[in-house]
């Protein structure tokens, strides 16, 4: 018991320091991206369009003909996709011969409150895909969107279907009528008046508010449980390093541009307009039926951030002839960082991409 109390006090102290660091970074007018941990896979920044800094990861061995663009979410920093050796999505994919590009979203400042879906999709993403195609001498890219990045990826693919050869959605928050996750029942409390007040008060949705939302999803775990688990697993090799890095990521929240926050809250979360086919981005209506390329919809069976039932409807909404749901036994973050995912899921993803890239024929497993 003494040992437990001694360790817990250390863990809480470190957790408090991490929390303060996260607050400091989130409150900075210009988010200090240079404080990100060192990358696992070497990369080169090859372009910058709007609020998107594009990272290029070279393929190992003979590269696949179609480059792969990973569209990361607009919250938290993207190093979760390049987490650790043997637990890095980027590393696993480059090892399989894919030329990988990753969206390193530049956190918005107070001058960026006007940015919404139009700016992020029709400007940043569209220009980036054009750039990649030109750079690689390709007509199309393969696209993989993770979480909120999947939402952006789905909207982009529906609006620019000719530029996407294959589309993978990873833990996509699509159907907001699903309220299986308890905190999602509080979405109705986020009235248009409240979201407007948030943007009037803060400009952008502040990072601390996003962090508070994530903490509120599992408050017992985030305040006590994870430290007790750390104590119980302290003999397990590598657990502490993984825990520290994961916590570093959990406290890497960035602000969300004001207009995007309002569009997400009102159009997506409250009115579910994307699923209902009523979402306008810029002046164009987003119709998921225009997604006609092969689609792989990866879902975490134990995802408690994006409920599986929220992701499943993508299968019925896209116009693709070839589409597949792939449910994997992992949680939301486990899909990207668990060793089981890198042993089983990501090799399967690589095979799926290669089969359609090399032969152009459509095969279902």
């Amino acid at each position, binding site marked *: 018991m003494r040992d437990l109390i001694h360790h817990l006090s250390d863990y809480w102290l470190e957790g408090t320091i991490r929390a303060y660091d996260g607050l400091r970074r989130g409150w900075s*007018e210009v988010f200090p991206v240079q404080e990100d941990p060192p990358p696992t896979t070497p990369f080169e920044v090859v372009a910058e369009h709007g609020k998107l800094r594009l990272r290029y990861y070279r393929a190992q061995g003979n590269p696949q003909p179609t480059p792969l663009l990973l569209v990361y979410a607009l919250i938290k920093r993207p190093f979760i996709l390049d987490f650790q050796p043997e637990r890095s999505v980027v590393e696993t994919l480059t090892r399989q011969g894919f030329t990988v590009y990753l969206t390193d979203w530049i956190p918005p400042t107070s001058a960026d409150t006007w940015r919404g879906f139009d700016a992020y999709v029709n400007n940043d993403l569209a220009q980036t895909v054009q750039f990649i195609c030109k750079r690689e001498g390709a007509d199309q890219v393969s696209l993989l969107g993770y979480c909120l990045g999947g939402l952006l990826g789905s909207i982009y693919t529906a609006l620019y279907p000719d530029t996407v050869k294959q589309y993978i959605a990873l833990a996509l928050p699509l159907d907001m009528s699903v309220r299986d996750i308890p905190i999602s029942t509080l979405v109705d409390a986020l*009235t248009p008046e409240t979201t407007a007040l948030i943007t009037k008060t803060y400009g952008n949705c502040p990072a601390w508010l996003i962090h508070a939302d994530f903490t509120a999803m599992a408050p017992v775990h985030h305040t006590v449980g994870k430290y007790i688990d750390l104590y119980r697993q302290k003999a397990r090799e590598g657990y502490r390093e993984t825990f520290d890095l994961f916590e570093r990521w959990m406290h890497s929240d960035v602000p969300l541009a004001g207009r995007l926050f309002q569009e997400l809250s009102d159009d997506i979360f409250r009115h579910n307009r994307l699923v209902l086919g009523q979402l306008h981005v810029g002046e164009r209506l987003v119709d998921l039926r225009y997604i006609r390329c092969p689609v792989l919809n990866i879902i975490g069976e134990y995802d408690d951030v994006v409920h599986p039932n929220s992701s499943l409807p993508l299968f019925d909404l896209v116009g693709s002839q070839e589409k597949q749901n792939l449910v994997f036994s992992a949680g939301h973050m486990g899909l990207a960082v668990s060793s089981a995912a890198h042993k089983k899921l990501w090799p399967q993803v690589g095979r799926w991409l290669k089969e359609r890239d090399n032969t152009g024929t459509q095969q279902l497993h």
Partner: protein
Amino acid sequence: MTTTPQRQINDLLTLTRSVFVDLPLAGIQWGWGIGPEEAVTKTAWKGYDAGVRLATAAIDNLYRLPLTAEVLTRVAPVLLRWQRINNAAAGAVFTGLWQTVGLPTTAEARALREAVACLAAEVRLQRQENEALIGLTTRLMQALDAQTPVTPPSLFNGFVLNEQVLQLKTKPTAHEKGN
């Protein structure tokens, strides 16, 4: 994930039994030397796990209550309005103070940052143009070398000849040497 009411009742029973029965019993046995310490630890963790599940389920049920959403709907705008008033008041007070002590305001820092960003973009563009020019020049030189590998390019003929003449002129003649 969602826990069913049956599961919550089981957890409550497990927690109660661990705290009031199993743990004291295991503790006494360990104290008297007739039971291992591991039994106490195992019982404690069993109770803890049940307690965590129970606490999580209680919070989830709280979120699902309509009253919670109602309270949040009413309280959030009030808090945000107060925040706006405080921000405005603090801005008014501190803007004057910042100028007095010589610190830049947010607007000034933002303007400076934007100016630096513009300069950086300009430098980047110029660097790209330079690289393109260097590449073009290199290709031109290579093409010229490939066309006339032995004799100097005609463009420079005049210059080379002049150099040769210069060298001839600087060499002393036999007469000048006194031969």
